[in-house]
Structures are given as C-alpha cells and as structure tokens.
C-alpha cells in the first residue's frame, strides 16, 4: 500500500529534479518524468483495485499532522481512486504520446506536464477548498504553459484567452472561498453544514461563487469560447489533457460539492448542462476544423455529465453508474480521438481521408466515435440507457428529449466525419510512419473502452445477460480479415448457420418466422459472397455484426437486450451500406434516420418503465398513462427501418448504391427488423387510442400512402437498383397496412408479404445486381436485350415480378387475396381500394424493369456479356424453388402462420380444406389454380409449337420500323423516361416533398448553428463578458431573480 501522498511527492519531486537536468540529459529526464507519471498511475490503480476488492479502506491523509480545518486533508476513496487513475492514465499516456515533441521543446514542458497532473490529482483528492484553489491555479498555469507547445500565433492567442478566462474564474473562486471561510470558519468541505443553506445570506453567495466558478471551468455554454479556441489552437495532444484530464478532475470536484448544492442550484446546473450539451452539439454541425469539432463534442459530453450531476437526486443509486459510464467513455474516446487527430494533423475534416491509409487507426477512430455516441457494447450505451430509463421513469420527459436531441446532433457531425474519412476521394500522400509511442496510447484506450463496456454491462443487473458470443464471433472476423473471401464466407455461413441451429429449439411463432428470414435469409444471401474475389476487407465483420443484431432481436427478452441488438444491427448495416461507391450521403441519412428511430425506441422503452418493475419486454403489455406515447414512439422507431412514408428518404440511395449482395441484405432482410419490431409491439400493446382515435388507423393510412408513393416513385426511376429500393418502400407500406388492420387476415397478409418480399426482393436484387456486376451501370436505359445473354437472371426476375405483382398462380396473389378479405372484414374500403391501386402501379415498374433490362434492344457493347456468376444465381434459384412450392401449396406457408396468429387475433381465421382456403367472404385454392393455369398454358403452347414448326429466327433490327431501318440499338430501345405520360398525369404525387422537408430541417439546423456560433467572435474580452454574464444569469436564476 503506497500512501497517495506519494503521488504528489513523486510528481513534484521529479518536477524539481528536472530543473537540474541539462539539455543533454533531456531524454533521461523525460523518461524519468514518465516514470513518475507511471508511478502515480500505479499508486492510484493500486488503490482502485484495493478499494474495489475491499482489501484497502478509504483513508484520510492529514498533512502537517494536524486535524482539519487547521491542516489540509486529502481523501482517498473509491471515487478518488478511480478519478486519479483516469487522470494519471491520461497523464502517462498523453506524456508518452507527446514524448518526442516534449523532448524537442525541452525540460520545462515536462515540468509543466508533471505539475498539471499533480495539480489535478490533488484537486480530486483534496477536501480543502483553498487547497483546491491553489492546485487548480497550478494546473491552469501548467496548462497555459503547455498550450504554447507549438509556438505560433494561434496557440499564443488561444493560450492568452485561456489565461485571462481562468484568471477571472479563479478570482471568483477565491472570493467565494474567502466568503465561505468568513461564514463557516472552515475551509474543509466535510465541516460545512449541508442542506438548503443557499438562502442564508452571504453563505449562499459564497457557495454559489465557488460552484459557479467550478462550473465555469467546465466550459458551459455560452461562456466557453476560450475553451474552444484552445482546442483549436493548441496541439491535439495537449487538448487531451484539457478535455480528458482537467474535465474529469473538475467534474469530480462538482461531485464533491453535491451535498452543498441547493435544489435550485442543482436545477440550474442541470439546465446549464443540458443547454451546453445541445448547444455545443448544434454548433458542431457547421464546424469543419477537427480539433475544434472535437472540442465542441468534448464540451457537450461534459455538459451531459454536468446535467447528470444536476439531476443526481432523481437518479437514485443509478447516478454513479450513469456518470461513470458517460465520463469513462468521454475520457477514453476523446483522448483517443484527439490523439488520432494529432497524428493526422489536417485542419479540415474533409482532408481526413488520409486516415484511410491506416486500417488500424481507421478502426480505432470508428470505435471511439461509436463509443462517444453511445453505441453498444461501449460503456456509454449502458450509461445512456440507464439515464433515459431513469429520467423517463421519473417523468422527466423534457430532459429525456434534450439528451436524445443533443446525442442526435452529435451523431450528425460525427457520422458525417466518419463518412468523409471512409468515402471521400483518397489523399494522394501517404501517412507518415507512426512511432509506437503514438500508437500505444490510442490502442490502449480503445481496449480500455471496450473492456469497460463489458465491465459496465457486467455491473448492470440486466445487461449481464446479454449474449455477447455473436458479437465476439463478429469481432473475431476482424482478426481473420486478411484471409481470402472464400474462407471467410464459409466461416460466416457456418457461424450464422450454427447460431440458427442453436437458436432453433427455442423459437416459436413470429420469432421462428423472423429468425428464419434474418438468419436463413442471411445464409442465402451470404452464398452470393462466393462470387467475390480477393479479400473483401471489412465486409464480414460488419455483416456479422448486423446479423448478430438481427439475431439478438429474436433472442431479446428484455427491452435492454432488444435495444442493444437494435443498435448493433444499425451499426453493422451502416458500415455495409457505406461500402457502396457513392454511398456517402445515403449512409449518413440512413444512420441519422436509424438513430432518430432508435432514440424514439429508447424513449419509449424508458417511458414503459413507469408503473412497471423490471425491463422485460412484457412490461409493454402492462399499460401505463404513457401507453399511446409509447406506441407512437415505438412505431416511429420501427418505421424508420421499414421506411414508411416520411421516414423513407434514406432508403432509395442507401439500397441502390450498396454492393450486389449487400442490397438484398439491407433490403430484403434488414427492413424486416422494423416489421418484427412492429409485430412485437402490437402483440404486447394491442391498439392504442389517442384523442379517441385508434393509432393503428393512422398507421393504416400511412401504409396506404407509403405503398402508393413508393410504387409510383419506383415506376419513375431510371436506375434499376433505385427502382427496386423504392419498390421495397412500397411493399413495406403494404405490410404496415396489413399490420395496422389488427385482424387475423391482415396479419396473415402482412406476414406472408414479409416472407415473400424477402424472397422476391432477394432474387431481384441479386439478379439485377448480377446484371450491374457484368454491365457496370445501373441505368436501365443503358441495358436492354439481355435475355439472350443472361437467361437465368431473366427467368429469376420474371418469376419474382410475377410474385411481386401478385398475379396468380404464383404466391404473391395470396397476399392480395388475404388483404382484400381483411379489408372487407375491417371495413377499410377506401384504404383497401387505394392499396390495390398501389398494387397495380407495381405493374408499371415490374414491366419497366424487365423490359428495359432484359428485353428490347441489346446494346453493342454488351454482346459478349456473360451470365451472372454462378454464386449469384444459386441463391436466387434456391429461393425460386421455395416460391414455386409455396405457390402450389399455399397452406404449407399460410396455415402455420395462421396458427401463430390465432392466439393473438383469433377472429376471422382462414378455414383450410386441403389446399382450399375459405375466408368469411371468399375462397381460393392455390393448387388447383396452379394446375388449371399450367394446364391451359401448356395446351396453348403445344398448339403454338405445332403450328409454327417452321419459324425463322431473326436478328435484333429485323423489325418493322416505319419502312426504315433502325441505326443504333441505343436509339431503338424505348426505355428512358418510360412513363413520361404517367409522370405528366400523376407526377404531382411524385414531387420530392418529403425530401425537401427533411432537407429544409437540416438546412435550418445548420443555419441556426452558423448563427449561434458567431458569439464566439475570437475576442478574449468578449469571452470575459460571456463569463460575467453567465455568472449574473445563474445568480439570478439560483436566487429566484427569474
């Protein structure tokens, strides 16, 4: 056991000792300094472990051998141990990272670093207020010294602003401290009476001044311009200390003062925290300088923790868990990001493509970013989950909204940045070689981030049941990323298959259906992956993360597990989508919509805990006053995935630009996750009423318009994959409508549409993907006549569109028939007519697709085109086989589904007599229809073959062409603007109103951001005015001036 006082001794001692070293021994001196930092880390870590395992007891250290208040006392408890560990970690590794730089600048920089870390250690440990002031000043001065590590006009200006701002703040702190002493006669935090003392004149002012100055040190909005300028002006390695170490220490100080806070100040604190969180993330929107952007993010994150501290009384025993989860993530992630920024050294996030040259750093960047945004499995995920749940459980809805909004804004710029890195045109220059001392800190903080994520989930009463095995398997694929595709694909198929096999015995009802779509569907689409050559780096880990999420949705028993899986799926699919060539903006909008939806789900799950114990999914069934709100939020969340009207604009681009086998994954499979969510929700919650109207009624109309607009837009596309993407929107509109019917037949229809959509959209995307693969274009008018070159793809598309269009005798008709019956039963006649109208519009794009691609005129340059690769065809034909079986024997599909639905919606079930289905209104026998149609067709065909025995096969220009001859296939193929007349007639429906709306929202957000950030006009004096104004406002607020 090493007394923590040795931290100070070591750091201070070495700092003095360094003063004696000359420039020649600088390396040794630097190593010595690092050694001191390592020693401090060791001490605090030892204390942390000791206290955690309860081998040590928390200790008071009295200096000068006198009891407080006559002496300064330091305290070492779990909290102090943890925070000093964090600070010393940053100190050691930050020092290591900057080692070369510091050596170049001389010993004084090492001294400054040691002093900074020493100061912060004491700030955390001390119980004496004046001591707090002294060491805060020491660390400030040291920081100011470090800021000018790079001596240029930027860092000088930033440093000067830093000094004058912290100078004023320190002065105010000092006044507060002296007043405190005047009124209490003590400077020891433990001696000061607690309770609502703020109203006592004088004393209240004293504590107010102290707390406010500490708050100001945390750079609250808007009094934080000086902090931002420092982040931008100084070296990124220094920003790490300011953001991760100083921020951490000051947050702990704030935490220490919680007992002294009056409720009104706590409220002010939470307001300031919330405002800072939202505002700095909002301002981040327009920011392009990476360090300043990280500064905004950093200030926002600290604001969030301040908010949590302000709300501490309401968070109960979860408070520390939440705060540590959020803060820990902030420390490691922000340090990591700043360190990476220090390596890249580009002053615009658009120039960061150079990062892509280094795979490891890119992965680490992604890890830090996802961690910051609260994605699983990082600690902040659990922190945010608990925070939202607790807030919602306590009825703090507006706080919940603020936090989610702020997080969303943060996601906007961080994902935009990530997108730039991954997709913007690559920089020509290579990255400089990176020495190990720069790598090591980054890698270690990433590892700690992940480890602490697992740790936090282990500490959580529910999260410890989350099944991490799929995630670990997915992560394992990162390690084998260098193997050829063939091996990885086989392993991926095997692992998904194994999981399904293991999961299978527990599956029942809808979980069986959707598990099959997700995982068996996954295996089938993965088969197409064999067509790829080379390594296909980065694909498999992400695909498997997506499947891990999808499988996790099936396995989820609690809302936490469900949300965990949902987020996992979102991340995986994001990275799959962004692999496409022109996916940068589409992937971003996909992510933003998904994230918005996810936050809606999170909010709903939080609200569901009101009046409920536990977080099992069954609590959704136990309704509380928020039930309609929960229903709507969940529906919005799930509908971002099903891409219902209004939330659909991400889909066309994302699906169209994705790779050949990714399109079916994200379109045919991923969209069903939303459907699964809706089904789970509706099973648990039933229908909900709002203002006396059923919400599902609105969902029904939404489904109708989604179907119409989706199909109409599909018919007006020139890009084959975009057409299919819009078609997905339309079909999912059907499914939504079916679910909204809330009747047996409606659900049966919706489920059968979900299954058939999976099948035909997989085949369509693969078939068209195969064509695109060969032709290297997605524009349909550049294709044509491919039936002769790619007959198997043609047959696949033909059967799929017959199913899609719902034409008997294939199984797509089942969906139409069920819908009509369900509509009759429910009495939604107008909706029914419109949805069948949408179905007829589907013919337009079905025909356009097959005509423009496979029929008409073959282009000259496609003469030697080969059939799509075998591995792309194979999955298609597997599915087509199943489709034909379902068509001939519809009860093999519909009967079991019906039985699954019956327990929930027993009325109006189909009556089966062999293959004959009877509903209340009609009847239908798929098998006999199949026989009849095939019989007639074969008879007629035989007649045609008999009569036209001697028929002459001709070539492509042997057509009657108004007595002329065609000259070029391009001018003879009628494919461009195929439905011009339709566009003229009903194009008004196809105006991009919704895209315009969202673009407007984004535009407003960005311009507001741009307007507000003008307050940071770069003048240190203006920043002082901000600080003083801030104090006045908080004072008025706390003391009831407002």
């Amino acid at each position, binding site marked *: 056991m090493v007394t923590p006082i040795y931290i100070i001794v070591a750091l201070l001692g070495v700092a003095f000792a360094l003063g004696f070293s000359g420039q020649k021994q600088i390396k040794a001196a630097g190593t010595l300094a690092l050694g001191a930092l390592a020693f401090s880390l060791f001490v605090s870590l030892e204390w942390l472990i000791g206290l955690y395992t309860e081998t040590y007891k928390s200790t008071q250290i009295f200096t000068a051998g006198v009891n407080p208040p006559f002496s300064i006392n330091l305290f070492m408890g779990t909290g102090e141990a943890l925070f000093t560990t964090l600070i010393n970690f940053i100190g050691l590794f930050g020092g290591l990272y900057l080692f070369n730089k510091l050596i170049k600048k001389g010993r004084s920089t090492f001294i400054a670093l040691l002093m900074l870390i020493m100061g912060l250690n004491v700030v955390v440990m001390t119980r004496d207020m004046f001591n707090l002031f002294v060491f805060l000043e020491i660390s400030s001065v040291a920081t100011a010294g470090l800021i000018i590590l790079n001596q240029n006009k930027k860092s000088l200006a930033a440093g000067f602003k830093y000094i004058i701002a912290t100078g004023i703040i320190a002065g105010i702190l000092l006044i507060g401290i002296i007043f405190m002493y005047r009124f209490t006669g003590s400077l020891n935090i433990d001696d000061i009476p607690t309770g609502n003392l703020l109203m006592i004149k004088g004393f209240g002012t004293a504590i107010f001044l102290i707390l406010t100055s500490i708050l100001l040190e945390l750079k609250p909005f808007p009094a934080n311009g000086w902090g931002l300028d420092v982040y931008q002006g100084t070296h990124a390695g220094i920003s790490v200390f300011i953001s991760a170490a100083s921020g951490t220490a000051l947050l702990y100080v704030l935490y220490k003062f919680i007992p002294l806070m009056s409720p009104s100040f706590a409220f002010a604190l939470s307001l300031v925290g919330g405002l800072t969180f939202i505002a700095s993330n909002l301002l981040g929107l327009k920011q392009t300088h990476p360090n300043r952007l990280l500064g905004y993010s950093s200030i926002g994150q600290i604001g969030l923790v301040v908010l949590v501290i302000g709300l501490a009384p309401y968070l109960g025993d979860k408070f520390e868990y939440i705060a540590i989860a959020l803060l820990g993530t902030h420390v490691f992630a922000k340090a990591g990001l700043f360190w990476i920024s220090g390596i890249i050294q580009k002053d615009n996030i658009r120039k960061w493509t150079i990062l892509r040259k280094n795979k490891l750093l890119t992965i680490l960047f992604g890890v830090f970013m996802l961690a910051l945004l609260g994605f699983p499995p990082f600690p902040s995920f659990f922190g945010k989950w608990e925070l939202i749940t607790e807030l919602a459980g306590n009825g703090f809805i507006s706080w919940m909204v603020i936090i989610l909004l702020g997080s969303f804004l943060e996601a906007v710029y961080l994902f935009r940045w990530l997108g730039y890195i991954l997709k913007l045109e690559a920089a020509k220059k290579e990255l400089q070689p990176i020495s190990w001392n720069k790598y090591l800190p980054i890698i270690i903080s990433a590892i700690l981030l992940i480890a602490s994520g697992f740790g936090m989930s282990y500490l959580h009463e529910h999260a410890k049941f989350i099944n991490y095995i799929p995630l670990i398997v997915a992560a394992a694929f990162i390690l084998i990323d260098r193997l050829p595709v063939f091996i990885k694909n086989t392993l991926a198929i095997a692992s998904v298959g194994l999981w399904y096999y293991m999961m299978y015995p527990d599956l029942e009802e809808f979980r069986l259906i959707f598990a099959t779509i997700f995982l068996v569907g996954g295996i089938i689409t993965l088969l197409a992956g064999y067509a790829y050559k080379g390594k296909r780096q980065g694909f498999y880990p992400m695909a498997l993360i997506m499947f891990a999420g999808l499988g996790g949705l099936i396995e989820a028993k609690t809302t936490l597990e469900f949300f965990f899986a949902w987020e996992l799926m979102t991340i995986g699919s994001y990275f799959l989508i962004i692999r496409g060539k022109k996916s940068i903006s589409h992937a971003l909008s996909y992510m933003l919509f998904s994230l918005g939806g996810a936050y809606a789900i999170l909010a709903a799950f939080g609200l569901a805990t009101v009046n409920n114990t536990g977080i099992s999914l069954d609590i959704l069934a136990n309704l509380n006053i928020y039930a309609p709100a929960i229903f709507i939020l969940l529906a919005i969340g799930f509908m971002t995935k099903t891409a219902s009207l209004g939330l659909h604009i991400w889909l066309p681009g994302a699906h169209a630009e994705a790779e050949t086998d990714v399109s079916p994954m994200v379109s045919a499979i991923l969209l069903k996750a939303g459907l699964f969510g809706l089904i789970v929700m509706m099973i648990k919650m039933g229908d909900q009423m709002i203002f006396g109207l059923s919400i599902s009624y609105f969902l029904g109309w939404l489904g109708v318009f989604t179907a119409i607009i989706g199909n109409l837009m599909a018919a007006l596309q020139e890009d084959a994959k975009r057409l299919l993407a819009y078609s997905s929107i339309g079909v999912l509109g059907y499914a939504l409508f079916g679910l909204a019917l809330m009747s047996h037949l409606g659900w049966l229809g919706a489920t059968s549409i979900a299954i058939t959509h999976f099948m035909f959209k997989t085949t369509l995307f693969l078939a068209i993907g195969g064509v695109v693969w*060969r*032709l*290297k*274009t997605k524009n349909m008018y550049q294709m044509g006549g491919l039936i002769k070159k790619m007959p198997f793809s043609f047959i696949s598309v033909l059967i799929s569109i017959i199913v899609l269009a719902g034409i008997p005798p294939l199984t797509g008709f089942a969906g139409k028939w069920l819908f009509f019956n369900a509509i009759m039963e429910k009495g939604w006649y107008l909706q029914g007519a419109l949805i069948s109208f949408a179905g007829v519009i589907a013919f337009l794009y079905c025909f356009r697709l097959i005509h423009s691609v496979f029929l008409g005129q073959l282009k*000259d*340059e*496609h*003469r*030697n*085109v080969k059939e799509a690769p075998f591995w792309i065809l194979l999955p298609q034909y597997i599915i087509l086989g199943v489709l034909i079986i379902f068509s001939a024997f519809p009860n093999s599909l519909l009967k079991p589904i019906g039985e699954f639905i019956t327990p929930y919606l027993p009325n109006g079930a189909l009556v089966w007599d062999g293959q004959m289905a009877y509903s209340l209104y009609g009847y239908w026998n798929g098998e006999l229809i199949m026989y009849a149609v095939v019989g007639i067709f074969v008879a007629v065909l035989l007649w045609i073959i008999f009569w036209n025995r001697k028929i*002459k*096969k*001709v*070539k*492509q*220009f*042997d057509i*009657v062409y108004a*007595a*002329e*001859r*065609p*000259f*070029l296939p391009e001018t003879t193929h009628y494919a461009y603007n195929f439905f011009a007349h339709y566009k003229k007639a009903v194009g008004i429906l196809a105006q991009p109103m919704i895209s315009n709306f969202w673009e407007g929202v984004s535009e407003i957000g960005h311009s507001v951001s741009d307007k507000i950030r003008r307050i940071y006009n770069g003048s240190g004096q203006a920043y002082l005015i901000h600080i003083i104004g801030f104090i006045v406002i908080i004072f008025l607020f706390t003391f009831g001036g407002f």
Partner: protein
Amino acid sequence: MSKEHTEKRIVYSPDGEPIEIDPIKDYFEGGRPEIRNPRNGIIEKFANWARSESLWILGFGTGCGAIEMRPLMTPRFDAYRFGYQWRPTPRQSSVFVISGYLSVKTLKRVIRSYEQMQNPKFVVALGSCTINGGMYYDSYNTINRLDHYLPVDVYITGCMPRPEALLAGFDHLKRKIKEGRGEGANKYAENFDWYKANQKKIIKDWDIPDYNW
C-alpha cells in the same frame, strides 16, 4: 447519316475489351427468301379463298396515287365490305398497294416493307407511273417499271385511277388469288438475284441487308 452506320466499328465492352461491330451482318438476319410451295388440293383452295376474302392492305402512301386510296374507306366506296382492311404494319398485311410513282428514295423503303410482309403477299401497282414511269418517264429519280423491282400482281392504269378502277383491280387480284396464281412471293424468291441486282442498280446508298426479314 446512313453510311457511318453501315461501316464496321469498334465498341468497348464494360470490361474494356474491344468488340467489332459489322452492322449489316450483326443486326440483320439477311440471307435469301425461301420458296414456300403451296399445298395441294382442297386445303390450299380453302386457304386461297380465305386469303382473297381477307386482304389486309399495308397503309403506305408511296406516291400521289395514295390520295385515291382514301376514298375507298369512305361510305361511298366502302372497300371493307369486300374484305379489305388497312393495317398499319407490314408484318400483318398481305397486300402492298404501290400508289403511283416511286422515287428511288421511296423504293428502298418499299422493298424493305415488301420483304417484311409474310408469304403469301401481293402487290397492286397503281397508276401509269408504275408501268412506264408515266409523266416521270425521264425523271432522274423515279423508277419506270415497277416489276423490275418487285413482282407485281395487278397493275391498274390511269393517272390517277379512280377508286372504281381500284376496286376493279382488287377484284382482279381476288380472282387471281382464288385461282392460285397469287404466288408473287415465291416468284420474288425464285428470281431474287435478278430483282436484287435491279434494285441495287438504281439504289446507290444501299444500307439495308439483301433481304429484310
């Protein structure tokens, strides 16, 4: 316009491999027409009756005589009652009415349309111009004798012939078909080389295949 589209050219496949395009050979089947002999006996007679009673006319106004064909559809002449109908596409038509003089430019289109009609097919040449050039006998760009270029079943004289004359001509055609003498298509196939040589002699920019299917 036409020349550059009949010469060989190189295009590049999506993979960047060059592909040589020989337009006439690649786009068109070409070759020669086949002789399809009539069946014997009652079946052919019945078929000929049907052919003669269902004369689908290719609506292609080749010359000024086309103006005289329009009245046939009017109530006054009403050619429909005799089984004549106008079709917009040569694929489905059986009678080609060459309505008057044929400029060289039109001749090429006429040949293509004629060849695209299915056997059996018949040609009715209308007006003096188709017989000897008529008033254009010494023109630099009209042909003089149609049956040097296409097998003509019926000539109707006049400049221009009245609709009544047309009806009479069609009547004549009907009789001819019923008698089994409407074998212009086979005649064309038999003497294909001669016809083609004549056609090519007069049409200089020959940008269509030798036989248009």
